[in-house]
């Protein structure tokens, strides 16, 4: 079998070949996994497996193929939405009314999670010192950042989406997404720069 491009598969899926969903989903698996991994509420880590989220999402996507064909959203955008919805459902289920406004909270990771992500971890006490200081700085910087800039940074960097994909997901122009990315990187530079040097 010759290797078909993502676009070709997407086109086939749109034109009615349901069987293409599985291989196509498989190609986006890594990216979706990163998204789930990153956006899962910290309280649920250990209770929910990211793979399970994907499995549910895949089943759900299968049920809603018609919707994909009806509106012209790119596959990634569509499948991300489904995954997001799956996560919302799981959050609701597991966290109950602590997340009554689950829809708003899921997918926009709390800045605490986010800076924790950026900072990574150090086990030694002096590492802990650095981590804490860094965390505070990053939290400030992220808080000061424009919400879409921040989101572009997350999509491009942690979910490893391309610029076009990030732009599609956010519903903005590609050049705008691109400019925002560079801008966000510049913002972070100030306090991450010295860490980057080995």
């Amino acid at each position, binding site marked *: 079998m010759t290797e078909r491009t993502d676009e070709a598969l997407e086109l086939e899926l749109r034109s009615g070949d349901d069987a293409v969903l599985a291989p196509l989903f498989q190609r986006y698996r890594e990216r979706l996994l990163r998204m789930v991994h990153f956006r899962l509420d910290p309280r649920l880590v250990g209770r929910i497996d990211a793979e399970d989220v994907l499995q549910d999402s895949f089943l759900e996507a299968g049920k809603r193929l018609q919707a994909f064909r009806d509106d012209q959203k790119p596959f990634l955008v569509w499948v991300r939405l489904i995954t997001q919805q799956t996560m919302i459902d799981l959050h*609701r289920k597991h966290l109950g009314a602590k997340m*009554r406004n689950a829809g708003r909270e899921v997918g926009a990771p709390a800045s605490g999670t986010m800076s924790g992500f950026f900072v990574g971890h150090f086990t030694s006490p002096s590492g802990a010192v650095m981590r804490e200081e860094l965390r505070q700085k990053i939290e400030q910087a992220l808080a000061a950042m424009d919400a879409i800039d921040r989101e572009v940074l997350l999509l491009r960097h942690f979910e490893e989406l391309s610029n076009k994909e990030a732009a599609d997901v956010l519903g903005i122009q590609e050049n705008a997404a691109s400019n925002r990315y560079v801008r966000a990187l*510049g913002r972070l530079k100030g306090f991450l720069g010295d860490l980057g040097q080995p």
Partner: protein
Amino acid sequence: MTGGGDSSTRDPLDLLVEQFLRQRRTGAATDVAAFAAAHPEHADALRDLLPTLLALEDMKRDRESTGSGRRRASVPKLDRLGEFRIVGELGRGGMGVVFEAEQESLGRRVALKVLPQAGLLTGNQLERFRREAQIAAQLHHSNIVPVFGSGESDGYHWYAMQFIEGRSLDRWRDEQALTPPTGSAHWRERGRMVARLGQQAASALHYAHCLGTLHRDIKPANLLLEHDAETPPPKGEVRSTGTGLGDTRRSASASEDREATAASSRRTSEHLWVTDFGLAKALEGEGLTHTGDLLGTLQYMAPEQFAGNYDVRSEVYALGVTLYEMLTLRPAFAGSSRSQLMERIRTQRPDALRRSCPELPEDLVVVVEKAMARDPGDRYQDAEALARDLQAFLDDRPIEARRLSTARMVWRWCRRNRAMAALAASTFLAVVGAAITGWVAYGVAGVERSKAEVAAFAEGQQKQRAEANLAIALTAFGKMFDSLVGPDPALALEEDEDTGEQTVVVRTVVDPRHVELLKEMLAFYGQFAAENAGNQTLQLETARASRRIASIHARLGKPEDLDAAANACAEALARYATVTDRDVRREEAAVHVLIGQLKQRRLRPGEAVASFQKAIDLLAALPNAETKAVRRERAEVLLAAAQNLTPRGRGGDGGPRRGAIVSELGSTDGERERVRRGTELLQACVALVDTLLAEEPHNHEYIAMRARCHLLTARLSVRRSDGGRPRPEADRAQAEAERMRQARVGTDMLRQLVAQAPQQPTYAFEFVEALLETLPRPEGPGRSEPGPPGPGRERTRDPDQVATRRVLLHEAMEHAEALFALQPDLVEYRHLAARVGTEYGGTLRDAAAFVGGTEGAALLRQAESALLVAAARAAELVAAPPAAEPRFIELVCAVRRELGSLYLATDRRDEAVAQGNLVVDLLERQLETLATGPQGPVPSRFVRMFEQRQLIGFEDLVMRLQNGPLLSRVRALRHRLPRPEGGPPEDRPPGEPRRR
């Protein structure tokens, strides 16, 4: 990965960055300078941005990788520091560098720990570092490395301590791994050695703990094993200080190490030193303690530390895990990532020592495993207790941990996981059985032996032990019983608004998973009672066994169980009668209460009251009837009796009922008699509670009882009437006002109680229930029982009423959520949270109707969220087969109906139809279960629920939906219902609610 669209629209820098990242992510070598040089037009910007990018990448990877991201301290090679002449470097790591040095002024050899120079330490941290060093310098214990002092020289902060000739335990462990023990003698020697080390470490810790100092970083690397002064270390053997760095320089060859090991294993006087006291704390980030962040080395961290709790027991744990590692020569917990490791520590048990080292002495296994118990409450409560038991092991004396460990272990197991308890039961029953057999067997054999007068002393001990074992086993089993079955079920009598028919809801529902265990318990107690029927000494225990049998049957709840329960009660009474101890009368009274409840469940309130009365009389006749404890018990029984006579609901005031009254006292006269009797009992109860309160006005339990009295008075006030005849409007209004007044007083008392005793969830539970009872209800006759508005009764849209409901429900919501969060597995809490959520969502929907606009839309969204959450919870209540309780089904119907109406109101017709279908799905499923299940015919209550309450209210919605398929499903469903005795179901089109 797909490429990036039209390049011309992109920031050129972005394109370069992307290219760089792609190279990096595919593993190609990436060099910032070279990459920048290759793109001269953007070189500056790239040099500026790319390091940030790399840092981000590293961090992302770091997060996934293991916890070994140790950073090297930036301390250069030094020749001297202040008055110290540096002899050599012993190791370096995140905390700094450790040097061997000579303090020239005193001519002594020291281990000098030097912190990195970097400005990472804030003034505050330095201050703490100095303070901790001072505190450590004040610890004088033969097993704590003495700290000589600390200071600052040439810009470096240092910390000087005695130089210990030897090596840290992690090194020792690595050496041991080269020569695994062979044979039980060798294992025994290893075990004794580890026990000796552990004993020294524990006593050092205890000493420090007594002075208020925690070590905070107990691990092998911080425990030093000194070479015996008489046995100099082999040539080349490293001198080490505890550095916490784990990689001290060494030059010894493996063979020399083995010699050293062999030498050390011959010695029995190893000396252990604990080092680095409090250093971890001194160096931790200022904010870390506040944010509950984690310290110490992950592998040795106690599970509670992840929740930010740390006390002496956490150090007992760390030492226990260290000893485990010294015995097995591998860490108790390992993981490939930090999060995995944490998860394992929190949720898993390390391999059982007995399996890893089958030849280890049994007692040592028990001691180490107790020290490292996951639950701090199960560990030694301080380091001294651990030291004592290790010493006892070394002295071949019986260890403390062993005595209770079996019963406690099983008990703990059950407490932690009730589902597991079912699996544990057989094991446990075997243990208890063995204890009893041992005891009884002893009694027989003892006679023979005492004739022979053999070892009278030892025998006395043995007898005591056998008795103690039996007592422990029975107590533990009793506790397990209580935990599993809870207190005797609270019964709530409910009255159907339309028919006056009463139903008893058993509030403590048996988890189906526990049924098997209960049956096993039943078998155990049954056997116990049968085998020991003639045993005078065990008479009381046998009576108790019968009582528990009754209790279990009462919970299992099938009709035949109720008979069995009654029989067991009678047996228990007969047995209690043979015991003269007066305390036993109280237990006997409890049996009468249980009988009363059984009668109540058979809807024989008259007989029930008689039984309650017997209990009351028994208690009142006690010589100690006026003690607080007995007065309280009397009040409780009185209250239970009064509640038994006073169903929730307001059957008496609503005008003529359609249905026949079926209960024993259900006639109009009966009703009047019942109210009179209930009032009498309640008054007696209030009198008792008031005397209790006069003595102890702040006793929470007394206040709670008083509040319950108010709430019951509220219920009685609307019943205190002339039975079934309609009341004049004014009369009714007055009664209603009185009801509200009493209910509010009771609710307010509970509210205060909840504030004062937030740790007591039952108060919060009662409070929320009381709040629901005081909610303003829509006009007209209505049940005070919270729940969906009844059929044909569209909610009133009185703005004031809606506002009041919203405030009260908001409060109820908070408490119900807290309860649910506390114990999500508890059916009653789940039910309560779902009920409150349903009411709350409905009320928000009503509120939205008054405001409109964006505010209204926001309210509707809130309402939807609340209802969705409630629906999810309610769904779980009915998810488990077999047939769900009717009140759960009703709740699901109610919440789905609310959701449906909400969707209908917001033009989301499809979703509304979906809710309708969900209800029909549930009802079909339930009907299926009921029809095919062993329960026999579909209970009439279920039929009525279809007929009157739920479906009609639901059909309003279905009708408004005008959805053909749904309509026909509802119609088909109704036709499948069995015909009630009153004739075939009226064949009226759905959606035409019965008018009355």
